[in-house]
């Protein structure tokens, strides 16, 4: 196992723990984006460029954007009810 793979695995384990420990959903969306990027680097270290490209565009762009949009709709619904 190369050093890059060991470091990437450690970063992924730490990132996963941080995503779960952050309780505020807005902050968690950004931490999840960083976690997705760490996973993509791990996939590059495992010689899987297709999966890494897919992981970058999905977990760094699409999923945090969907989370933030859903949170905006929740906040708008709360404001509309008042």
């Amino acid at each position, binding site marked *: 196992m190369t050093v890059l793979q060991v470091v990437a695995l450690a970063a992924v384990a730490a990132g996963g723990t941080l995503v779960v420990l952050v309780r505020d959903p807005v902050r968690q969306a950004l931490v999840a984006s960083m976690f997705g990027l760490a996973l993509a680097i791990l996939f590059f270290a495992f010689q899987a460029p297709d999966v890494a490209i*897919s992981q970058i565009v999905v977990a760094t762009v699409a999923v945090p954007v969907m989370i933030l949009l859903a949170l905006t709709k929740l906040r708008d619904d709360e404001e509309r009810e008042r």
Partner: protein
Amino acid sequence: MTVLPYLVAGWLLVVGLWGAITSRHLVHQVVCLTVVQSSTYVLLLAVGYRSGGYAPIVSSSVPPSSPFVDPIVQALALTDVVVEATVVAVLLALTVQAHKRFGTADPDRLGELSG
């Protein structure tokens, strides 16, 4: 050291499940589910990795007779990543509807306020 990737996959699974069980906000729960799904990616790619293998793209400098990592496992992981995005989308739509119906996004209090 040779079982480290499998242990990291197991750790991500356990941590994600713990976060989903003790969560107080539905959107937080959905993101913990993505952590659980990422443990399957790590496991799949770790099973298919060959030491000294090249990425499975054939070109003039990488002839087909070189050692390659397993492409089937990578195709499975690729499918997995796309399915994660769709599952998150549907779960977030359900969260928005649940919040509209119950007025709260706390999973513990979802059953109480009913109209």
